[in-house]
């Protein structure tokens, strides 16, 4: 009698998965574009100190990095266990920093050179003596904008 006959045995229709690859590809491209493969291999221990008042570094192309820390275990036989400076992919002496920074600055176009920032990525266990020497070298190279690279976290640890 009823006009609205209940459909029998319908079940749920299969959802088409044809567009699944598209979705996955979309995500894939997103991650491919945002991925930054670490440009340098770290030769030094690098646990950055905590800070809460962090300002982000904006223009990546204007930032030069200086890594400071104890050499990793496998390099200790060659270079010893005292904290060292790493520029690009090699250990460097403190007095090489000036030349390095100047070379990096030459690579930036002239209008933006004053905006160049040197980010000091130092391990939290480094002593200030080394950091001060680095800062002194940067002053000699007349690169005055610096950034103490930090992690986000509470500072009152111990």
């Amino acid at each position, binding site marked *: 009698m009823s006009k609205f006959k209940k459909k029998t045995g319908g079940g749920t229709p299969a959802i088409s998965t044809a567009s699944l690859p598209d979705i996955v590809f979309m995500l*894939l491209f997103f991650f491919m574009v945002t991925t930054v493969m*670490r440009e340098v291999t770290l030769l030094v221990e690098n646990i950055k100190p905590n800070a809460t008042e962090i300002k982000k570094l904006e223009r990546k192309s204007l930032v030069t990095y200086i890594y400071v820390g104890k050499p990793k275990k496998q390099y200790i036989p060659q270079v010893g266990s005292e904290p060292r400076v790493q520029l690009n992919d090699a250990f460097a002496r403190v007095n090489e920093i000036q030349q390095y920074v100047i070379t990096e600055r030459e690579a930036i176009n002239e209008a933006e050179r004053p905006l160049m920032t040197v980010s000091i990525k130092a391990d939290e266990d480094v002593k200030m003596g080394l950091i001060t020497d680095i800062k002194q070298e940067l002053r000699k190279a007349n690169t005055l*904008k610096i950034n103490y690279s930090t992690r986000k976290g509470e500072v009152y640890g111990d």
Partner: protein
Amino acid sequence: MAWRKRIVPEINAGSMADIAFLLLIFFLVTTTMDVDGGIQRKLPPISEKPSEGIIHKRNLLNVLINARGQLMVQDQEIKLHELRQATVDFLDNNGDGSCSYCEGIGLDNLSVNPQKAVVSIQNDRETPYRLYVAVQNELTAAYNELRNREARKLFGQGFNELNSAQQGQVQELFPMKISEAEPVDL
């Protein structure tokens, strides 16, 4: 023309999703949304003659950090968590009454006004970098606290929400003057 009749077999694209997933997972794992940030500072030019002489003693907040990680501010040993408030008190003191926006009580051993107040950090060569950054962080926090307060008073928003002109205006109320002495043995 036999080749025209040849039927090209259809390639099964069913596993395409799997391949894409594989790549996706690889990039997911290797991705580091590397946001490098930290505490930004400006070093003094090397040629500049030190001008410490003209700063009156009360306008200088001496922060000393020794090799054992102890802090001394204005000849008193303090703890790291007290530094922020001590700095705020120092900057916000309004010693000569010329600072209309300050909320300090005008003690006569702290700064006369924020324009003249200078924070001086002195550290030992053996001072741990961790502590140095912590001190820089606390000083920045003190300035940020005051700037935020003024930003709210003037514009009803936090300092970070302001546009750059407004930020400049607030910055001028509490200019960050942090001077660093050459390291000595403390």
